[in-house]
């Protein structure tokens, strides 16, 4: 036996090595799961987690968010500061919120919010701690307090608990709010995966948010709010029966405080009334009845009950637990941040996957950069409008011969990474864009100078991983997204056809116009007209041409 090979271990020896793993340790070793795999991505993820938390806090407190993001840094190290005008955090909670993984307010309730797991911001702090060894620096003030609290917090990874370095009360010019500063290994790159692109997309989906961004070069970009109205607060809900899994049902039956099956169905589920509950029980058959004791069912007839629930038609999930962006606000956001020639948005009715209600919104911004646009004036004449200059650096809209850009959002948060594995991308690819006049190769994104925006709002968005970069392609989700895409695409096709007709008509007229002077010359030669008479005739002819063709403009 060679010396290089380890000796076989005994069960006893093995037992000595077996011990608990803290969740912090686990994510420290698997930081890619939280989106901190490269320095460039880590920076964007850190900004995203901080901004998500800030927006959630402001909205929950009913305050119009005012966010300042600052990224400073060089030599691969960055300092990120995110400041909000939120309600602030009670001092005693600060260290746990920022210094403990899986600690938060949003995990245990079924309600639509940006954050979900209570892991993001502490993971960002942990990443900073790992790469540059600096703790998080937090300043927060609750309205009415005389001084703000300043804390330096890191994570004790072995025990997943906060490690408080310094704590004091300081002067702060903000009446209320929170400021998080973190230092980490991070690079602010440019392009579609930059901090700026992320903030711009946030501004598109959140017309009520104002964001100021200062980058390392001192450049300041302000995304101003276009709406003074906060979106309505989403309601907390019970699960919807459609698509609920057997295991979850058994767990619910076990833990319920209800003493009868009928009561259980009505109280623990949304959209189930007495009538529906009785229908479910009838379908489940004997020995189940409305009086059955839930805990007993959990062990014996849960399967039958589960099948009955699946078969019984139940009202669609309540939509008031979902807050969509809304067609008007979405349109406003697109107009504000994406210069384009044609916009259309649609908000689908709410649907459910696995009992979780969700709602899909789709928007399309179609631009013709560099391509002339045709204007028709009152006399029926057509002119080439000068095309608008599109800022090439900021283009979220694809160029003429490139695949479309997809702007993905989940609960108003832009998704920047893992585009190809996302339900939204798959839905775009599965949609037959050729039917709407665009080019598309099989199994690829369509080619067009446009951006497709898809927003999925849900009480529980099924992300493919904890880093929340892509949405799991559940069939129900894909179906709804496709329906939304088709609805927008129909309007786009209508617009494109109209544009095409205008272009054709313009070409026709330009062609005919070429020959008008010759008609003038011929008439002059035959009828011995003066030059003025000839020119007058040509002008009149030109008028007649445009006048006579005007009605044909809209005809296909």
């Amino acid at each position, binding site marked *: 036996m060679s010396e290089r090979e380890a000796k076989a271990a005994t069960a006893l020896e093995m037992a000595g090595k077996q011990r608990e793993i803290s969740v912090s340790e686990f994510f420290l070793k698997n930081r890619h799961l939280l989106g901190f795999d490269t320095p460039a991505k880590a920076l964007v993820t850190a900004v995203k987690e901080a901004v998500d938390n800030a927006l959630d806090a402001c909205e929950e407190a009913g305050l119009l968010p005012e966010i300042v993001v600052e990224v400073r840094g060089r030599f691969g190290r960055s300092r990120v500061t995110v400041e909000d005008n939120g309600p602030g955090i009670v001092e005693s909670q600060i260290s746990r919120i920022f210094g403990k993984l899986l600690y938060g307010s949003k995990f245990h309730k079924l309600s639509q919010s940006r954050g979900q797991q209570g892991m993001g911001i502490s993971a960002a702090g942990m990443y900073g701690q790992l790469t540059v060894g600096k703790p998080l620096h937090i300043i927060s003030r609750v309205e009415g307090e005389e001084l703000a609290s300043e804390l330096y917090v890191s994570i004790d990874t072995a025990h997943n608990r906060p490690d408080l370095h310094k704590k004091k009360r300081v002067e702060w010019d903000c009446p209320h709010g929170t400021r998080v500063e973190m230092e980490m290994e991070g690079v602010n790159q440019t392009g579609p995966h930059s901090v700026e692109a992320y903030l711009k997309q946030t501004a598109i989906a959140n017309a009520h948010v104002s964001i100021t961004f200062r980058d390392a070069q001192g450049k300041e970009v302000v995304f101003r709010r276009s709406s003074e109205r906060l979106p309505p607060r989403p309601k907390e809900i019970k699960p919807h029966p459609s698509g609920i899994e057997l295991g979850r049902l058994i767990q619910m039956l076990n833990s319920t405080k209800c003493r009868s099956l009928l009561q259980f169905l009505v109280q623990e589920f949304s959209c189930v009334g007495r009538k529906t509950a009785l229908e479910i029980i009838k379908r489940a058959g004997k020995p189940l009845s409305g009086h059955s004791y839930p805990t007993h069912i959990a062990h014996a007839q849960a399967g039958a009950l589960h099948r009955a629930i699946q078969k019984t038609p139940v009202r669609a999930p309540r939509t008031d637990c979902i807050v969509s962006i809304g067609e008007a606000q979405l349109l406003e956001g697109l107009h504000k941040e994406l210069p384009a020639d044609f916009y259309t948005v649609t908000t689908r009715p709410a649907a459910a996957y696995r009992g979780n209600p969700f709602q899909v919104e789709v928007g399309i911004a179609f631009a013709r950069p560099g391509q002339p646009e045709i204007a028709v004036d009152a006399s029926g004449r057509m002119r080439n409008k000068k095309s608008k200059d599109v800022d090439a650096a900021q283009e979220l809209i694809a160029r003429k011969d490139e695949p479309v850009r997809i702007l993905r959002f989940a609960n108003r948060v832009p998704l920047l990474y893992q585009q190809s594995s996302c339900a939204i991308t798959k839905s775009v690819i599965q949609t037959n864009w050729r039917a709407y006049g665009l080019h598309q190769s099989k199994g690829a994104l369509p080619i067009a100078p446009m951006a497709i925006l898809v927003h999925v709002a849900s009480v529980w968005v099924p992300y493919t991983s904890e880093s929340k970069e892509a949405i799991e392609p559940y069939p129900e989700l894909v179906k709804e997204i496709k329906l939304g895409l088709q609805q927008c695409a129909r309007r786009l096709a209508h617009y494109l056809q109209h544009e095409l007709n205008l272009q054709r008509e313009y070409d*026709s007229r330009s*062609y*005919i116009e*070429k*020959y*008008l002077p*010759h*008609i003038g*010359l*011929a*008439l002059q*030669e*035959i*009828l011995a007209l003066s030059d003025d008479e000839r020119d007058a*005739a040509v002008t*009149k*002819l030109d*008028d*007649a*041409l445009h*006048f*006579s063709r005007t009605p044909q403009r809209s005809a296909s």
Partner: protein
Amino acid sequence: MKKASLNIPRSDRDEQTIKLIETIANQVRKAIESGKLPSIRMPVRSLDNVTYDQAAGYLELGKAERVRALTVNTARSFAQTLRLMATSRTMVESNDFATKREAYYISKNWGDCRFEEQAESDAIMDDIEAVASLHGLSRENLRFYPESHGGSVAGRLAIIDQNAKTGQLIEVDCANLGSGAYSIPRSAEHLRFRTDARFVLAIETGGMFQRLNNHRFWETANCIIVEMGGVPTRATRRFIRLLSDKHNLPVYCFVDCDPYGFTNIYRTLKAGSGNAAHVNRFLCVPRARFLGVTPQDIIDFRLQDATHPLAATDVKRAKDALQNDPFITAHPEWIAAIKQLLDMGVRAEQQALAKWGLNYVIDEYLPRKLADASRFLP
């Protein structure tokens, strides 16, 4: 093109031509002045719109009209039509003319409007000609002359022409040209004739014409001979027509005995062609009769061993004529003759008569045929 030749007074025809062009131009201008898009109406020239007028004896354009207006498809030809009409008017005024090829090159100065190929200018010219024909005006009146000259003429005929510069009369005696012949000009409108001939003999081939001329056949037969050289050109047809009309002369046609000779050469001379149906009324020679060589002649003059078998194209042409040619189907004699030819399965050339001696045609064939003109095919 500008040429001082105004010392010759304009003919009535020229006045009519100018008036027609000005009328069309004025209509266009009036439409423009009233804020409407102008258009020009012209007859449809396609074969669908060609019918055979049995009473008049020629192929004629029907009533179908089309409108040339300022649409994408016709804007270009609309402008070209007007410009070509302007050119025509200027030529009438300065007493000049342009061949079809020259008209094509004139357009090269028209910028966007220019003709890319001569086929284009020919088509536009035919359109204008079709409009003019409705008013009794021919292409020659519009001053567009064909490229190819007419055939040759010899015989008992004096042609009175004039010097284009001075207007002085020139008389050409076709009986006094030796072994040569008079060449039919591109436009015969202005010619006048003096003759005591009894008929006109139109001959297909130059060789046969040469033989008849050299042996002065026209002197003994008291006639005028015309060489057609295959399908007669417009100039030739117009010349024969004018000659026949003005002096009330019958026209006899002497061509090969094959479907091409019947349906292309003879039919075109007598009833006109489908392609130029709009001008047939000026060009056809309804008085023409078919002297020979007829299928019956092959038997009567025992030419069977001087024939060639009918080629596939000949058979096709003959069958097509029996079915579709309105002139042939209107004449039972022709149906019988073509059927007879198809049954015999052979064709015979004019020169086949040389089997019986080089001058058999002068000494025997033509005198025997001419003795009974009533037996000629219609």
